[in-house]
């Protein structure tokens, strides 16, 4: 029986890779110390597959064909597509067999995801990947969730997708790590870019760290909107929560980093709490 051996969520603001020096020393230390902790935890967990739950940013999809969920069935991934990210373009092996089974199971569970054998990685996967597994040696799978072009899948639906993912983990034999990426509050490219809603972010993380983390599924959409449209990416955090069977998280780091225009958070889910 397969096992979920690691679950985490973190911000993926492009500034983290493209202009880290723009953040203050304290902000950098807080964020990168936390990602280093995740990196060590991921390494110790020895996963066979790393699943990224991450949005697209019009790198692959446009409104002429926008899936709610797209499962990457790539045999090999390549990225980043953004040349200005200050990262060399790299190839990463894909977990295509796992992806194939996930596609079939989620279809049978009524999710009707799309699939793609040719997803191109953007900063949503590459920023965390470079920090958590820069060796690029473990096969990955990208589950793309539409967080940029409404109508979006609900936060609750994303949680349910995470639960379906967990069922596939149990059905197969691999040791699996799940990493959600995105958020927290931000509005990239908008006139409001740089305005971070730290109150929202702290309340969100407090809920996730509490004994009732599924309370995040009931945050009114309007409240999320008011924190900036980039906050729609909390869907990926809800997906990790679903995969972790509703286990609470532990915030390793949070700071509203103005230079990166994002409320930047790093969390690990406590899989041992109450027995995941």
């Amino acid at each position, binding site marked *: 029986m397969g096992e979920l051996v690691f679950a985490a969520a973190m911000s993926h603001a492009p500034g983290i890779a493209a202009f880290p020096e723009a953040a203050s020393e304290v902000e950098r230390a807080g964020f990168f110390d936390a990602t280093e902790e995740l990196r060590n935890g991921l390494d110790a967990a020895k996963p066979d597959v790393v699943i990224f739950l991450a949005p697209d*940013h*019009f*790198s692959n999809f*446009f*409104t*002429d064909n926008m899936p709610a969920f797209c499962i990457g069935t790539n045999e090999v991934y390549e990225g980043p*597509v953004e040349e*200005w990210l200050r990262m060399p373009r790299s190839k990463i092996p894909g977990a295509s067999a796992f992806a194939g089974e996930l596609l079939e199971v989620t279809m049978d569970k009524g999710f009707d995801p799309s699939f793609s054998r040719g997803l191109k990685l953007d900063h949503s996967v590459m920023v965390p990947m470079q920090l958590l597994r820069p060796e690029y040696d473990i096969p990955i799978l990208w589950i793309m969730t539409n967080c*940029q*072009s*409404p*109508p*979006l899948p*609900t936060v609750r639906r994303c949680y349910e997708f995470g639960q379906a993912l967990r069922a596939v983990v149990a059905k197969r034999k691999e040791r699996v790590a799940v990493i959600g990426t995105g958020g927290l509050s931000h*509005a*990239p*490219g*908008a*006139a*409001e*870019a*740089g*305005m971070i809603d730290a109150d929202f972010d702290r309340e969100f993380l407090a809920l996730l760290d509490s004994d009732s983390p599924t309370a995040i599924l009931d945050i009114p*959409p*309007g409240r*999320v*909107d008011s924190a900036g*449209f980039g906050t*729609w990416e909390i869907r990926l955090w809800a997906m990790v929560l679903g995969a972790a069977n509703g286990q609470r998280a532990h915030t390793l780091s949070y700071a509203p980093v103005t230079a990166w225009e994002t409320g930047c958070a790093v969390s690990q889910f406590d899989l041992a709490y109450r027995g995941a």
Partner: protein
Amino acid sequence: MSLFEVERFIFKLKSSEEMQFALGKSDESVFEDFEIDGEERRELLKGDIKSLYKKGVHPLLLRPYSRLSGLSPSEYNNRLKALKGTHKLSSERQYSRTGE
């Protein structure tokens, strides 16, 4: 005016060096495969991000377009500063209520 066509143009522009070169030379043949009218053509050729933002171009497309038009991130933010609060994206359902 077709917001869809303007956004489709930018989406294609992001991954096409040929289109980027043509736009950089203000070569109007770059618009050949798009239904983009005169006013939008002028805005896209001039890098008029204020007008494009007011017309509703998605910020995740507008920002990379501005980079390809030679605008620095700080200049981009400065130009849009006066438009704060004028165009906030919403995830609320337009036609139905969630759970109906």
